[in-house]
């Protein structure tokens, strides 16, 4: 049973994930972290990926990078299947894909100077000319809004969280990649700094012609930067669609719940009383049928018997639900 691959709004896909399954063995049990996810990201597009913690967002990102090998499924980058690659071939492809993490301070080696941290990917990828490396490091630091002269000689602990995230972004950009996976890059930052980093990512995307997979658990943050949004729940995709459309008319009950739960900074908007119920069940023994059914207000017998497939409920909007909020049931 192959779920249909949701099509991007335009262009040819730079990344195509097909029926990806990723699991972790724990003792004699299995964590079903990603269970058959398919999606496309077009060249130049930003796809936002949201869902509660533990739903498999990071696992998906790591499996795309081949940092965690999938049990089954394909990851096609620019038409080539990364899951079939090994060794040098994979390393060469990987240079075109970079990853930025949530905790910027922890992802920088505390004993190395910033200049060396950013030059390291260049050294590894064989840029032998030290002058050239220095130039590239300077350029990329300036691009992310840091003064190279003040920064290169210092150690990570001398910087705030927001500045460390700029450094991580510079490190990701220095090899001139085509695709960046941003795994909750602003979740650990204060609102004021978060806005700076989101703006920076948008600028860098335009300047370097990037394609982004932007992972976050905050829907408003995701909407601010994404062309399309994919919603994930307990290892599966619930819904994918153009950002504005998805927010204006969510089809999947889980998407609707996530939107309602966002606290609105307006005293006239009374928070909706307990729209959200319960917590996600364990991915070790996910519910049969629709994985969201234990928390879904619309669940019926069919939802426990039959797994809903992603299907188009509105132009370019796909939902995996037997009783979607829009479109014909």
């Amino acid at each position, binding site marked *: 049973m192959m779920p249909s691959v949701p099509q991007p709004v335009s262009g040819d896909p730079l990344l195509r994930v097909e029926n990806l399954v990723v699991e972790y063995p724990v003792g004699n049990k299995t964590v079903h972290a990603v269970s058959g996810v398919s999606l496309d990201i077009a060249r130049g597009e930003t796809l936002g990926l949201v869902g*509660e*913690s533990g739903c498999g967002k990071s696992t998906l990102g790591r499996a795309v990078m081949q940092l965690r090998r999938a049990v089954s499924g394909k990851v096609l980058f620019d038409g080539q299947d990364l899951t079939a690659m090994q060794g040098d071939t994979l390393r060469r492809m990987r240079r075109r894909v970079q990853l930025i993490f949530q905790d910027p301070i922890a992802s920088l080696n505390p004993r190395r100077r910033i200049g060396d941290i950013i030059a390291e990917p260049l050294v590894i990828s064989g840029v032998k000319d030290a002058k050239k490396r220095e130039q590239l490091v300077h350029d990329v630091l300036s691009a992310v809004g840091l003064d190279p002269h003040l920064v290169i000689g210092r150690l990570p602990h001398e910087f*705030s969280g*927001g500045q460390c995230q700029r450094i991580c972004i510079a490190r990701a950009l220095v090899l001139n990649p085509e695709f960046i996976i941003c795994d909750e890059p602003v979740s650990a930052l*204060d*609102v*004021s*700094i*978060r*806005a*700076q980093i*989101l*703006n920076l990512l*948008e600028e860098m995307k335009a300047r370097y012609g990037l394609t982004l997979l932007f992972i976050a*658990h*905050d*829907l*408003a*943050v995701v*909407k*601010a*930067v*994404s*062309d399309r949004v994919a919603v994930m729940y307990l290892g599966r995709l619930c819904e994918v669609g153009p*950002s*504005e459309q998805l*927010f204006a008319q969510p089809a999947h009950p889980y998407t609707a*719940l*996530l*939107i*309602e*739960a*966002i*606290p*609105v*900074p*307006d*005293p*006239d*908007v*009374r*928070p*909706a*009383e*307990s*729209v*959200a*119920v319960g*917590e996600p069940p364990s991915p070790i023994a996910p519910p049969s049928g629709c994985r969201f059914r234990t928390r879904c207000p619309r669940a019926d017998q069919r939802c426990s018997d039959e797994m809903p497939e992603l299907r188009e409920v509105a132009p370019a909007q796909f939902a995996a639900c037997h009783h979607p909020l829009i479109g014909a049931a």
Partner: protein
Amino acid sequence: MKGPALLSVEGVAVDLPTPRGNLRAVDHVDLSIGAGRTLGIVGESGCGKTMLSRAILQLLPKKAKLSGRVMFDGQDLVCLDRERLRKLRGRSLAVVFQDPMTSLNPVLTIGTQLIETLQEHLELDGVAAKMRSVELLAAVGIPAPEQRLMQYPHQLSGGMRQRVAIAIALSCEPKLLIADEPTTALDVTIQAQILDLLAREQRRRHMAMIIITHDLGVVAGRTDEVAVMYAGRVVERAPTPDLFKKMRMPYTEALLAAIPKIDAKPHTPLPAISGRPPDPTRPLKGCSFSPRCKYAWAQCQVEKPPLEDADSPGHQYACFRPLNTEAIAPA
């Protein structure tokens, strides 16, 4: 504020010695809250929210120096001896922290922790305390409460642990609950449930509550009054609707503008606040927000703006060029 204050914080300052010199974490804060009311304290990390709540609770680090008065229910907590404070903290003054493990003991079952609290402060016998514990766990939305009594904190999810911490905090019917970023570590869906729970229990118990958060969205629909903190000081304070609609302080405006709005179009650049808060061991001479403030003028660099009354009742701000007045034209 309506009615006599249950808590009034008067000129509270907290100094911490650090290798870099003295760090003033809280700088002459005045606040008050009436019985049954909700006060939100908002500010970015490091602005002194937790130190202020610890100053109220008399739970400051040993080396900290506290000045000012903390009047609670007619007595100055700063002058109480340890035994009286301990009793008070168990009974009338409760707290929930961001990390529920701060208030939970990892080696005791949930049941033991709840039952012991109830026995100590309410002098219930074992059977009554156990029954009350089950009721409390059910009230905070924990499924199968009898079974949970036998579980240890690590066997619960983060959201469930926070519910247990709330159950313990509520167990002795406190007059004031201080919730210090109770939902910051949780997903939005769980956050909504926990905030609803707090609001419901507050109404039911006619308890006063201080919600501390970095998110203006959390306080907007859920508080009577909000105080905005920056660099250890309260820089604006107002009844919640006034704060959002008639804000005077440029920092409040900037903080609100920087939040991504759910109804904004994708790829709209966010009005970010440039730079970052000042190093608290190197306090500025003038307004602490001046290096980042788009309205700053010469006076702001050399003088500290005092907290002044706005024309509507209960509204105060600390700014030489307040918004929504003739002092400045809109930028």
